[in-house]
């Protein structure tokens, strides 16, 4: 009888412990990471929580949103009719000089944002740079250095003031034939921000979205620990130039080493001047930290196109916009708001205060 009671005690103890462990395991936070190739890059979404099914569902919805923005803004679709029909950008470009095109709300917002920064940067940032991009052959099979007269012709078609946005009709119109939009500087960041909003709406509190260096974090890494985001050394890809501590923020970098083409042994990057049509050489890289990934993406390009001092002054006028900039002569400049949020540890070739 005594034996029986002892066994009973031990078995029930085991049961209680076992159940306890199962509950403990289920309340443990887990990471769910999914990757997809979208918008010409690898997009990864990491979400954290106790319920994997829930995370899975939220992640799927976020990817759906990125895919939707990608389809809407695609400039070079795969050779299928449906892809072309889905893209508002292709339709706007095809109808340049012909008639306005009614566009999706998100495309309209992107164009408004782009136009606002075109004004603010006095024309330096321009999403109607399409004809010049095409001339060089960015995103196309064949690349070449354009001649001066070719450039002149293409540059005459670059003018955001000729992009007519009609708020009531929700339409966009390039009012000169041959004009072309290129949303390469906005779309990825915008898509990342929309994905973050989807995750937030679904109830995900902690996540990291990374679309090829376009990064948006939700929440913190741990209770007392922000997310640690490395900034790649622009000249030594295996090294980090600095580490940012972020929470509920976005960071995007534009660099002269990304999306380059080689012509006759020379390297050209894709951040072209709306004045000269040539790659802009004031900066090596510009990293922007803000709350909103769309703004971060757009600004990283816009600031890259400005001279370093001008870029910093411009950023200082904006609300909650922080910048890390590497100038052409390898000087690292940081906006004052980054103090305490960045740990710089650049290689010897760089200088900073």
């Amino acid at each position, binding site marked *: 009888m005594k034996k029986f009671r002892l066994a009973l005690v031990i078995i029930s103890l085991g049961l209680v412990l076992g159940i306890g462990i199962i509950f403990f395991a289920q309340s443990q936070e887990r990471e769910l990471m999914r990757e997809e*190739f979208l918008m010409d890059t690898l997009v990864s979404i990491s979400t954290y929580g106790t319920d994997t099914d829930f995370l899975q569902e939220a992640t799927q919805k976020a990817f759906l949103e990125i895919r939707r923005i990608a389809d809407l803004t695609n400039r070079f679709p795969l050779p299928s009719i449906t892809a072309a029909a889905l893209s508002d950008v292709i339709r706007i470009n095809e109808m340049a000089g012909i008639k306005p095109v009614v566009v999706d709300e998100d495309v309209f917002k992107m164009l408004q944002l782009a136009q606002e920064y075109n004004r603010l940067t006095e024309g330096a940032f321009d999403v109607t740079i399409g004809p010049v991009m095409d001339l060089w052959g960015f995103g196309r099979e064949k690349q070449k250095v354009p001649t001066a007269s070719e450039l002149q012709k293409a540059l005459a078609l670059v003018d955001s003031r000729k992009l007519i946005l009609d708020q009531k009709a929700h339409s966009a119109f390039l009012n000169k034939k041959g004009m072309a939009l290129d949303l390469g500087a906005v779309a990825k960041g915008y898509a990342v921000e929309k994905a973050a909003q989807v995750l937030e709406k679904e109830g995900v509190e902690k996540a990291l979205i990374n679309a090829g260096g376009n990064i948006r974090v939700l929440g913190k890494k741990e209770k007392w620990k922000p997310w640690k985001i490395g900034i*790649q050394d622009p000249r030594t890809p295996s090294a980090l130039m600095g580490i940012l501590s972020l929470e509920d923020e976005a960071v995007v970098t534009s660099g002269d080493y990304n999306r380059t083409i080689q012509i006759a042994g020379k390297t050209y990057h894709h951040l072209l001047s709306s004045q000269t049509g040539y790659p802009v050489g004031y900066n090596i890289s510009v990293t922007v930290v803000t709350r909103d990934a769309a703004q971060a993406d757009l600004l990283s390009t816009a600031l890259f196109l400005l001279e370093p001092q001008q870029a910093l002054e411009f950023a200082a006028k904006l609300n909650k916009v922080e910048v890390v900039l590497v100038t052409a002569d390898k000087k690292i400049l940081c906006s004052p708001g980054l103090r305490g949020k960045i740990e710089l540890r650049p290689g010897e070739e760089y200088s900073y205060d």
Partner: protein
Amino acid sequence: MTRTDQKLLLVLLLIGLLTFVWSKFYTHPQVSPSQVVIKVEGEIVKILTLQEDAPLQRFTIKGKRGQAIVETKGQKVRMLEAPCPDQICVKQGWIESSRQTIVCVPNEVVIYIDEEASVDATTG
């Protein structure tokens, strides 16, 4: 068997059971440090362990577009050949740290080195 023996046996059995339950929940298949992970269309297709003095090795990977050849030497890895038009992945050359990733968008192949990372993500 004395009663103490029986108690001991039961306790041991219980510990065994608990360890079993514990391990079921806590050992997810994990990639251990300094391994090369190769993914195609988001799925891991190959994991290679890298020794510091390992000789040159080549592997064929079947990507979405076609066959690619991956080369490893010591703790470095590179894409030697890929069926993509831009050849960005091949031109990138060797990678040797966890912060670097070789991504071939057209072929949907990702190669990275898995080790304890100091950052959660990298921008650049």
